[in-house]
C-alpha cells in the first residue's frame, strides 16, 4: 500500500510539475551558484545557479517516463514472442529460446550501454535500449507461464470445440498469464528507473540541460566537497521511486499469488 501511495505521489508530481515546481528547472542564475538549501531554494542550487528542487521535480518526468515506456517496449516485444515459443513449441520454441539465452548472456546494463552507444545518446534511445535489453526476461517468463497454462483442461476444451489457435492464445491463455507478468512489470519498472538513471549518469540518457536525476548526480559528483546537497536530493528521489515500485511489486506478488 505504501508503495502504491508513493508511486501515485510521484505520478502526480510528474503530471503537475509545471505548477508544483517553484522555479524554472533550466533557468540559470549567476548570483545563486551552488547555494546551500535556504528558504528561497529548499534543496539548494547547482553549479550554474539552477534550483535543485525544481530540477528534482521535473526529473520525475524523465524517470517515470523511462520506467513505463521501457517496460512497455519489453512487454510488446517479450510477450508475443514468449507466447509464440510456449504455444507453438517445437523448432519455434527452440530458436526463440536460444536467441533469448544469447540476450540473457549479456549483462543487462552492459547490453543497454552498448545499444545506447550505437543508437546515440538521448532519452528516447535510452528507453529503447533498456526496453530491448529487458525484453528477454519477459520472453522467458511468458513462455514458462504459457507452457504451464496450455495443458489446462479449459484450454483443451477450447481447442476441442474448434477455436482457432490465435483465439485460444489470446482469449484463453493470455488472460491466465497476466498476473505474474504484472508483478514482473512492476519490478521491471524499478529496474528500468535505475537503468535510466545509470545511463543518464554515464551521459547516455537525458541530455542537458533537460533535468534528469542520473545526470544531476553525474554533475554533483564533481562538486561533492563543496555542494553535497546537489548529490543528496536526486539520489533520494531515485531511491524512493525505485523502493516504492519494489514494494508495490512485492505487494502485488503476495496479493496475486497466495502460495508465494
Amino acid at each position: 500500500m505504501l508503495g502504491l501511495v508513493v508511486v501515485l505521489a510521484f505520478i502526480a508530481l510528474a503530471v503537475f510539475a509545471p505548477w508544483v515546481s517553484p522555479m524554472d528547472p533550466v533557468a540559470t542564475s549567476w548570483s545563486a551558484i551552488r547555494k546551500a538549501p535556504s528558504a528561497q531554494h529548499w534543496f539548494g542550487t547547482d553549479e550554474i545557479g539552477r534550483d535543485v528542487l525544481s530540477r528534482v521535480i521535473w526529473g520525475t518526468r524523465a524517470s517515470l517516463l523511462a520506467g513505463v515506456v521501457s517496460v512497455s517496449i519489453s512487454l510488446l516485444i517479450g510477450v508475443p514472442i514468449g507466447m509464440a515459443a510456449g504455444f507453438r513449441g517445437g523448432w519455434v520454441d527452440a530458436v526463440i529460446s536460444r536467441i533469448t539465452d544469447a540476450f540473457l548472456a549479456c549483462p543487462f546494463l552492459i547490453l543497454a550501454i552498448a545499444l545506447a552507444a550505437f543508437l546515440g545518446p538521448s532519452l528516447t534511445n535510452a528507453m529503447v535500449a533498456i526496453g530491448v535489453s529487458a525484453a528477454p526476461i519477459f520472453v522467458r517468463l511468458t513462455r514458462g507461464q504459457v507452457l504451464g497454462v496450455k495443458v489446462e483442461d479449459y484450454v483443451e476444451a477450447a481447442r476441442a470445440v474448434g477455436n482457432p489457435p490465435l483465439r485460444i492464445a489470446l482469449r484463453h491463455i493470455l488472460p491466465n498469464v497476466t498476473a505474474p507478468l504484472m508483478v514482473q512489470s512492476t519490478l521491471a519498472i524499478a529496474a528500468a528507473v535505475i537503468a535510466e538513471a545509470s545511463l543518464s549518469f554515464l551521459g547516455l540518457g537525458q541530455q542537458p540541460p533537460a533535468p534528469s536525476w542520473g545526470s544531476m548526480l553525474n554533475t554533483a559528483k564533481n562538486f561533492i566537497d563543496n555542494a553535497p546537497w546537489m548529490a543528496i536530493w536526486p539520489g533520494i528521489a531515485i531511491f524512493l521511486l525505485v523502493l516504492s515500485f519494489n514494494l508495490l511489486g512485492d505487494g502485488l506478488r503476495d496479493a496475486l499469488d497466495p502460495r508465494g
Partner: protein
Amino acid sequence: MFDFLLRRLAQLIPTLVLVSMLIFGLQQLLPGDPAKILAGEEQDPAVVEYLHKKLHLDEPLPVRYAYWVGGVLRGDLGESVRNQQPVLTLVAQKLPVTLQLAVMAMAIALAIGIPAGIVSAVGRGTAWDWGANVFALWGISTPNFWLGILLILLFAVNLGWLPASGYVSPFEDLGANLKAMIMPAFVLGNAIAAVLMRHTRSAMLQVLSADYVRTARAKGLSERTVVLKHALRNALTPVITLGALELGTLLSGAVLTEQVFTIPGFGKLIVDAVFNRDYAVVQGVVLVTATAYMLLNLLADLAYFAVNPRLRH
C-alpha cells in the same frame, strides 16, 4: 561429472555464436556509413577508404560477419581507433583491476548476505527478520553510483579516512590498494548482498520446515548444529544458482562503480570507448563480458553439482 561438463560446454557454443551475431549486429545500428563514423571528425577520405577495405564494408553482411568472427576466433577483436592498440590488449590490461573489484565485492556480499539471510529465517517475524528485510529493500533500491557518492562524502570528504577516487596497483602498495578498493567493493557488494539475503532467507525457511531438520532437532542436536550443519548446507544449493545470476549485476555494476571512483578497469574502458566512439572496443568489451558471464554461470553449475551429492549419480 565429466559428462555433465561436456554437455554444458556443448550448450554454450550455440549461445556464444548467437551472442557474437548480436554483438556484430550492433554495428548495423550506426546510422549511415560506419567507416565515416569510425574515421572520426575529420573524415579524411583516405582513412574512410582504408576502413572500408579493412572492415570489408563493401561485402555483404554474412561475409563481413564471417571475417569478424574469424578474427575473434584468432584472438583479434579489432583495434581501438583512439590509440591504435589491439582491443584484446586493452581488455587484458583492464581485466585484473575489475577482477579484483569483483572478487572483493562478492566476498563482501557473501559475508553480509548469507548470515543476514540465516538470521532473518531463523528469527522469522522478529526484529532481526524485519531489520534484514529493510536492509534487503534498501540494497535493491539504492542506485550503486549514488551510494558511492554518499560514501565518498562521508569517508573521503568529511572523515578523510579513505581516498575519494583513484587506483593503486596491489603490487605497488597493497595497503593503498585496499584503501582505494574497499569503498567501491562495498558499493558493488551491497546490492548483491541484498539479493543473496533474500534467496538465503527463503531457501532457509523452506529447509527449516523439512522433515530431516525436525529429525535432527528430535535427536536433541543443538539449534546451532541443526541450522548450520543440517539446514544451511541444503539451503545453499538454490542460493548458488540464483546467486550466479547476480554475477551479471556484478559486471554491470562495475561499470558504474568504476566510473564513480575513477578506477581504470573494464567498466571505465567501455564508458570511455562509448564517448570516443571507439566501437570496436565497445563490441570487444561486451563480447568478453558475455563470455565471462557464461563461464561464471558454468562454474556456478559445477559448484551446485559439487555441494549436491544427489546430482552426482
